[in-house]
């Protein structure tokens, strides 16, 4: 339990640290990869909380997702290298306020509500993956299918929106990348 607490804490801090770094670096690639590591740290938290399948999945998905994020940052930012030291943000005070309030509320809820009895033991990983499989293809089949359909629709819609009207072609490589991680996930 102590060990678990330790790891959850450490990875939690890492996740938060990288998460903050996302909005503090000037270099776009850096901030994208910072987000990646933040997400990966979250994945590690899952591992620490004995949700092995979810953790590994999270770590895996985020790698490609955030890499794609990175290339889009470089495409769409004026100053991807962050050389000009320009600030790409607005209404700082307001946002900080909003963020702080949101966090504070969530924290207070976390602290002051009674979570009832805690289960000490989690089923072992192999068991989990099995059970999750049954759950997925049994009771929650509908949810699962819906998610799958949604993502398919999203892929098609996104591609349709993004393809130039004049002539597709050179960009398809990039769009393929865009769809890449979607499919990857659809294949989970």
């Amino acid at each position, binding site marked *: 339990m102590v060990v678990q607490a330790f790891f959850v804490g450490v990875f939690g801090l890492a996740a938060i640290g990288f998460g903050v770094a996302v909005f503090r670096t000037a270099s776009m690639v850096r901030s994208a990869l910072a987000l990646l590591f933040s997400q990966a740290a979250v994945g590690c938290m899952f591992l620490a909380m004995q949700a092995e399948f979810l953790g590994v999945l999270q770590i*895996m998905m985020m790698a490609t997702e955030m*890499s794609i994020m990175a290339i889009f940052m470089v495409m769409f930012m004026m100053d991807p290298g962050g050389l000009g030291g320009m600030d790409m943000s607005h209404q700082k005070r307001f946002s900080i306020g909003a963020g702080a309030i949101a966090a504070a509320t969530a924290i207070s809820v976390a602290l002051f509500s009674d979570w009832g009895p805690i289960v000490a033991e989690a089923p072992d990983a192999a068991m989990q993956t099995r059970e999750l499989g049954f759950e997925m293809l049994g009771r929650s089949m509908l949810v699962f299918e819906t998610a799958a359909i949604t993502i398919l629709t999203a892929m098609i819609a996104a591609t349709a929106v993004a393809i130039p009207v004049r002539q597709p072609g050179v960009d398809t490589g990039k769009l*393929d990348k865009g769809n*890449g991680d979607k499919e*990857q996930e659809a*294949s989970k």
Partner: protein
Amino acid sequence: MTVALVLLTLLVGAWLLAVIEAWLTTGRLRPVAPLLAGLSHLGRESILARKPDRLFFETAPVLLLVVAVLGAAVLPLAPDLVIADLATGALFLNAVLAYVLVSLIMAGWGPNGAYAMVGGWRFLGQLIAYSMLIVMPITATAMRAESLLNSAIVESQAGLWNIVYQPLGFVLFFIAAIALAFRSPFDLPTAPGELAGGVDAEYTGVRLAVLRLARLVMVITLSAATTVFFLGGWQGPLLPPWAWSLIKTLAVAVSMLLVGFYLPRIREADLLGWCWKLGIPLALLNILIVGLLILVVP
């Protein structure tokens, strides 16, 4: 102990590959050549590119090496010879391999040079396309084993190796493995004739040595994966299990080298086009076939 053995395997494999590679390119067989090359890299100055992203520039080679080793950590070389036989081992391998991409993007962005950058972004498309061909065949093997445990996957091939049970999956996985290790003919990120070395164009000295080692280890890891998922892992008559794993792994690795030796670099358009239009549908088909086989054949 186990760790030491696995690491030793990786290093020996990497050395052997380097020797063979040098043999293919220069035509002379010199077992010491890789060691000499490594030593001379260590002795030479390692230059930092002008105005680099230091963090990325330094991290990338190390990350690549770590990724390669982590990948090998979940692959059983013998029934008891595996660093961590995770319950989600097969998935974990995919997760780890996805970070090859991260490492290459770092290596591409870090040195702040045009060749490197183009190389890095090229690999984004390449990996996303070909990691599909890694994931889906592995999924099919896991379906047959009804488990994500790599050792279970090996045991599931006791009667019949997956290369026979799902040859399509094997072919796709083999190709994707070469693409993932960005060896020729899929060496677009470091295309010597196109990008003058691409991502590793700016690396010198120790960093370059690490990068080269990492790329060789990566090949070994992927070959070991091929062995585990399709060639029945450690199974085989007479010889002890570890020997079989070693033989099969090296055989696959060398075949990967030979493919690169006899083929020209693939066009990037074809690289992406064939994967998305041909490879992935075939991979899905493979999953379907395997599913049917599992249902039909008791």
